[in-house]
């Protein structure tokens, strides 16, 4: 199969790079004799992952759950804001600076405030923190892409009598889709990170909570297990969005080759 070989062609360099890195790590740890609580070897991490699987899995589920909710909220708000800014110029000039300000609110400051407002164990503060970081790349990517629709094509469409709604549906939106998906991919990756950061700040479950808990007990190996799970989750989120992109905008593949 052609797609099979091309997948292998693209897939082997990163796979080899990661394997080499893990190998170097393993050898380095063994040769230097560094203590396990400072830096565990990949083999230690693997054994720990198997040993504490049920607990890790429980926390992973919690993180994934809250990430998905936060991601969905962030994307919905992000798309909504982009559409509002696209349709009403005053909204755009008024909101854009606020959006940038929103990205400079540090979760370490915001998180505790949200917990005071919504309660320590409530999922709402976490969802807000995740959504805050997910909406931004979506809004920026979509707003800019909508503003950058090909002038010649827009003129053509208006000339032959397309209404504003037709122009949006048939030209501006499909034109902006590849860009929207770039934003969604960034947001998908942020959503896991955002969830972990939010779990750091409070609550009683999730990988962020698990990392903090294990660190306090000097269980460094467990911290590393959690880090690996986070990386895998981020890849999965990214992959799902990339797959959706491929299904929805296949026309964009193979252009410019």
């Amino acid at each position: 199969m052609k797609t099979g070989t091309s997948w292998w062609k693209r897939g082997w360099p990163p796979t080899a790079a990661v394997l080499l890195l893990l190998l170097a790590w393993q050898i380095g740890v063994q040769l230097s004799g560094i203590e396990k609580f400072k830096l565990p070897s990949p083999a230690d991490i693997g054994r720990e992952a198997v040993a504490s699987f049920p607990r890790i899995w429980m926390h992973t589920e919690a993180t994934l759950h809250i990430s998905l909710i936060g991601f969905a909220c962030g994307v919905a708000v992000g798309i909504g804001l982009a559409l509002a800014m696209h349709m009403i110029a005053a909204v755009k000039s008024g909101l854009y600076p606020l959006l940038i300000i929103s990205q400079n609110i540090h979760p370490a400051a915001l998180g505790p405030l949200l917990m005071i407002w919504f309660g320590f164990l409530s999922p709402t503060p976490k969802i807000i923190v995740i959504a805050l970081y997910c909406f931004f790349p979506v809004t920026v990517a979509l707003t800019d892409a909508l503003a950058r629709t090909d002038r010649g094509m827009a003129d053509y469409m208006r000339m032959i009598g397309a209404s504003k709604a037709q122009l949006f549906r048939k030209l501006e939106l499909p034109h902006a889709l590849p860009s929207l998906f770039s934003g969604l991919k960034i947001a998908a990756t942020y959503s896991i990170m955002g969830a972990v950061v939010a779990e750091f700040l409070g609550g009683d479950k999730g990988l962020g909570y698990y990392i903090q808990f294990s660190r306090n007990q000097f269980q460094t190996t467990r911290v590393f297990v959690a880090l690996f799970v986070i990386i895998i989750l981020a890849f999965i989120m990214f992959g799902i969005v990339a797959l959706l992109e491929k299904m929805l905008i296949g026309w964009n593949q193979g252009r410019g080759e």
Partner: protein
Amino acid sequence: MSAVTGGEPLLALEHIRKSFPGAGKGDAAVKVLDGVTLQVGSGEFVAILGPSGSGKTTLFRLIGGLLQPDSGAIRLGGEDIAGQRGRIGYMPQQPSLLPWRNVLDNVLMAAEIAGISRKEAEPKAREWLVRAGLGGCESAYPHELSGGMQQRASFVRALLGPQQLLCLDEPFGALDAMTRLEMQLWLGSLWQESGRAVLLVTHSIDEALLLADRVYVLSAKPATVLEEVKVPWPHPRSEANMAEPQFVRLRQQLYDVLRKAKEVPQR
């Protein structure tokens, strides 16, 4: 000015003036069209020749309703259509096909916007694609076509709209000389089959003479009509027409007018 063949003209532009505000604050307005008057009859092929920047695309944007004239009237079938969109078919300078639609869906666009049902439009689209030499390309995407094929698709798209007048803005400007000639002959034959009226903007004297029933020459900006020439040969025409002494004479005449047109001081 000579009468249009067949009585009441389909399109009539009367003393159209248009200027744009200057680029900077306090800059004088740029006068682009300075009283342009021309007609296109039903089923007629009319070409507009003019130096670059003389306002030909602006003229189309006025006819298409994207711009309002400062003064003058734009009539289609006797009705004032200034500022109305969707009344003419259009083939832009670039093919402007949507990259996410295949050829068939692209050529259906004009019909779609006009509210013609797909069931009604699709058989016609397939038929015209075959006539345009694009049979078998229905499900190809624009980036898989050559420039000439994209322009043919763009023309078929304009043709499938319900409008009686098609405005073509330098459709073959980006093609090489051989492809260009081939496309001109192709356009001439398809136009005849279609029964539509065509208003074609071009830089090429030969293209105008090969295709049009009448040719208007515009001056440099601010544009006025400098000359109107009738082209006597019946359709369909061929390369052989281009060798006739009268063709050569007309070409020389238009060339002289165009050269003078460029000498008009640009303001």
